[in-house]
């Protein structure tokens, strides 16, 4: 068991999510940054998709009721065990009564804490991922609060794995997302098409697991259009009626009524989970054949380390 002493800004339990349910209005959810999540599980000796803790922006304090192996990966949050620093992207042992604290995030948004053997929570549609709007998954569908008890498996301590050189992702306050045109790209006017790929945007305070409202140059269409509600995906950049972009994340709505200007390439979607309020966001033009090559290379690189993991 693990006791939550302080839930932090927004901490949820996440696994790989529940894909394939968007036709019912259920987004896939799951770890917003699947790469850091998979690395945390790998270091703790778990399958890459075991249920883990996702802490956004920091502030989480937890107390271990038994000895265990723990791994931490993602945004740097100056983690400490009983006041002693522990390295980010590392696995370490904890004893009964040890307290792990996360301070506040810099260079990213979310940190993942994996426990050897994984955490246990009831499943909904084959996943324990928390989806807050419908109170599904996790601990009664809620974010963690002081007093919550997390159930970890009774598996004895596992070997701690060290990430080999070159596999630790570099996170920064400037997220660059390679993107392809979305279905309504063509209706944007020429200056707006240019702005999207050359000007920087920044994530506003309206940033959570569902998506992020961005600020930057106004994006406009050739002629005003009114769209019928239509399907949406994580990684889609929508443009609202005021010309402001909204970038959709793992918990984003399954349908929407705004033009879909861009779609982030599959290999870069993990970065969406590291966009915090204030993060600079840039989009770079990508092409189908490049996106395919990038994914193939990334999958074989990380797939060689983490069994079964793909972007």
């Amino acid at each position, binding site marked *: 068991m693990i006791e939550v002493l302080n839930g932090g800004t927004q901490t949820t339990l996440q696994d790989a999510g529940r*894909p394939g349910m968007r*036709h*019912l*209005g259920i987004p896939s959810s799951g770890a917003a940054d699947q790469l850091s999540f998979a690395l945390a599980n790998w270091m703790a000796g778990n399958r890459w998709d075991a249920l883990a803790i996702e802490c956004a922006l920091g502030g989480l304090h937890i107390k271990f009721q038994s000895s265990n192996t723990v791994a931490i990966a993602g945004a740097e949050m100056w983690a400490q065990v009983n006041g002693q620093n522990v390295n980010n992207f590392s696995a370490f042992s904890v004893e009964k009564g040890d307290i792990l604290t996360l301070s506040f995030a810099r260079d990213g948004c979310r940190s993942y804490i994996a426990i050897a053997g994984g955490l246990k929570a009831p499943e909904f549609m084959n996943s324990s991922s928390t989806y807050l*709007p*419908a109170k599904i998954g996790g601990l009664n569908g809620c974010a963690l609060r002081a007093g919550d008890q997390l159930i970890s498996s009774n598996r004895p301590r596992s070997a701690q794995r060290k990430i080999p050189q070159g596999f630790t992702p570099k996170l920064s306050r400037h997220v660059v997302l390679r993107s392809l045109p979305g279905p309504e790209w063509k209706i944007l006017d020429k200056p707006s098409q240019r702005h999207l790929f050359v000007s920087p945007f920044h994530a506003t305070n309206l940033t959570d697991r569902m998506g992020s409202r961005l600020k930057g140059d106004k994006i406009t269409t050739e002629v005003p259009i009114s769209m019928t509600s239509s399907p949406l*995906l994580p990684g*889609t950049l929508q443009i609202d009626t005021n010309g402001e972009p909204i970038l959709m994340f793992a918990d984003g709505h399954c349908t929407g009524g705004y033009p879909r200007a861009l*779609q982030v390439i599959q290999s870069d979607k993990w970065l969406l989970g590291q966009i915090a309020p204030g993060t600079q966001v840039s989009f770079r033009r990508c092409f*189908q054949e490049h996106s395919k090559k990038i994914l193939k290379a990334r999958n074989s690189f990380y797939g060689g380390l983490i069994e079964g993991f793909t972007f």
Partner: protein
Amino acid sequence: MSDTELTPDIIEYGDSALLVQFKTNSFSLDVNNRIHQLSKTLSSKPDWQELVPGYDSILCCFDMARISMERAKKNIATAIKKTASVEITESKIIEVPVVYGGIYGPDMAAIKKSSGLNQSQIIETHSAQPYSVCMMGFIPGFCFLSEIPSPLKHPRHKSPRSLVPAGSVGIAGWQTGIYGLDSPGGWQIIGRTPHKMFDKNREKPFLVKAGDKIKFIPSSKAIFS
């Protein structure tokens, strides 16, 4: 119904999804029926990670590590050809009791004003015919239904209410729909059903799915107690 309207475009949506978009300027039940047939045809193949039907489009997501964009396009084109001859199967009609007006339908007055009808005429018009469930989502359990009779059409609120209770039945332009969860929302609310469109604790969490038909049954307040 012209053939061009029923021959959709296949549009690239990023690197691992295709959007099958029908050309229609307003609501078309023919197009929507065709979308649900196409969804059925496509779902018989394991190629698709997600198949999300919309009013006038269907989103098809695939694993780009297994299937190329070209292959996916071909598979969709084949399915479109095949679907041209598929018969529409009559779907059963699900009855949904609704208490119209009063505290359950705070926007009834607005519809009265714009339509020039009185409350019982509005109730009669809204509940006269069955509606198709055209699509689900933006949130779990939200049902986007087919076109309402012209007099009832009404634009949504300029800025959304911060809380619309689950079960609320609303109008937005030519659409009518049911809220599956308590959520913020901008639709004109004319009634509420005690039925839970989405209940995570039920064996079948969803009451309806896209492609089903719904008929509203005007009911008295007593059904809420």
